[in-house]
């Protein structure tokens, strides 16, 4: 018996350069398969994520704990002063709020009169926390701590603060990967608010430092779009729900074809210090189905 086992237990000895060639071919096969069939390593990904995501979550929790401690160190005086100013603010805001409630009721009434669809502005959202970021400097993706168990699906739009920040590209049971709109490989179909002209908003690594995006193919023959124009996601986008705020036009010029315009957009979101995000759990495709 032992003899047979010994026979079975042979070892393959490869020279390292042969090993290199074999592994290179393997990698190239991976690359070509991804390109040719669009197959991603999702099953493997889930397995690997089971090992890594819990660690990332706890590290992120630890970071928050430390943050809390340093917060507690803040001077009491500061807090009291802050409270006083906040109390004053509450008064003014309450007054403002009362007025807004009146306006809101009026708006609802008018919308009912026009039979406007209210649902565009009230997408169901899930709050999530960023637990890790792309380890390199070339891309801008990050991982959040909610996944398919919380109703997040691929192509969900992600918001933070004042505007759109990205789209879910991969999802597991308890995590999801988000590609931000400033990523170099991101494209968003958008439109101007005042004239409803469509354009493409593209992330550009060369502009990331300034917190800007570039846009192109804006058809604006009458020169109505000016600097400061608001850009939102367009109604014809396949992946982004309509009306999410992208940013303000900061520069504008002619495309190389001399027909359409291109330029840069300033985003209202601080992409370097993102922590909490909101995920819209409705996809554009669901609405088309309705």
């Amino acid at each position, binding site marked *: 018996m032992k003899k047979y086992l010994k026979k079975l237990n042979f070892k393959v000895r490869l020279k*390292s350069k042969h*090993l*290199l060639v074999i*592994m*290179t071919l393997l*990698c*190239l*096969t*991976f*690359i070509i*398969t*991804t*390109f040719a069939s669009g197959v*991603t*390593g999702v099953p*493997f*990904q889930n397995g*690997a*994520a089971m*090992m*890594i995501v819990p*660690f*990332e979550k706890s*590290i*992120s929790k630890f*970071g928050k704990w430390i943050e809390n401690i340093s917060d507690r160190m803040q001077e009491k005086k500061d807090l009291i002063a802050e409270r006083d100013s906040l109390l004053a603010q509450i008064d003014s805001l309450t007054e403002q709020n009362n007025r807004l409630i009146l306006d809101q009721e009026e708006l609802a009434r008018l919308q009912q009169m026009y039979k406007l669809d209210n649902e565009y502005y009230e997408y169901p959202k899930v709050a999530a926390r960023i*637990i*890790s*970021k*792309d*380890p*390199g*400097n*070339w*891309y801008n*993706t990050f*991982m959040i701590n909610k996944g398919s168990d919380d109703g997040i699906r691929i192509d969900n739009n992600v918001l933070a603060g004042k505007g759109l920040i990205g789209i879910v590209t991969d999802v597991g049971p308890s995590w999801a*990967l988000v590609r931000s709109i400033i990523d*170099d*490989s991101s494209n968003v179909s958008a439109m101007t608010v005042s004239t409803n002209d469509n354009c493409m908003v593209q992330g550009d*690594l*060369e502009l*990331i*430092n300034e917190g800007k995006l570039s846009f192109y193919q804006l058809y604006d023959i009458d020169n109505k779009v000016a600097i400061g124009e608001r850009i939102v996601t367009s109604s014809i986008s396949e992946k982004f729900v309509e009306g999410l705020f992208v940013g303000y036009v900061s520069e504008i010029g002619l495309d190389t074809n001399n027909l359409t315009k291109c330029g840069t957009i300033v985003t209202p979101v601080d992409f*370097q210090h993102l922590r909490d995000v909101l995920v819209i759990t409705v996809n554009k495709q669901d609405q088309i189905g309705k």
Partner: protein
Amino acid sequence: MRSKLVLAVTILATILLQSTLVPQIAIGSIKPNLIVIFCISMGLMRGRKAGLWTGFFTGLFMDFFYGSVFGVYALIYMYVGYLSGYACMVLYDDDIKVPLFLAGAGDLFYNVAVYVLLFLLRGRLGVSTYLFRIIIPEMFYTLLLTFPVYRIYYFINYRLMTMQRKESESVWVLK
């Protein structure tokens, strides 16, 4: 066996640190590259094959989570590890200057490869911007990080892993 286990744990730890802790110490949104340091350390201390496997598996994990095209990072890191393995048994691995040089060269190689494979092929031609905005700052920050991090890997290699160096691992040594 024990070495393999330690190597696996170190790979996991390095990836976790790179994706959670390193973004916290980013300067001007430039993150140093811990993984390159890891690959060249293993290549330098344990030879070409070890460097190759280390690079391949760390790269594969990167591909799983953050890669846009599956297999690219695995390929690049594999070559970083493999090429630094040529220094094994030839240059002293207890002298910090050697890993410093390798980390610089490795990071440059990695970034140029990423640029060529993932950006140039998409028609992004602004080489100088990328060079001064990303490649060179990242290289310097990585060099800076090599000082403390290499010592940790050095400790892990000599205290926790069993040595199994072979003369045949090095092409330069006379046989």
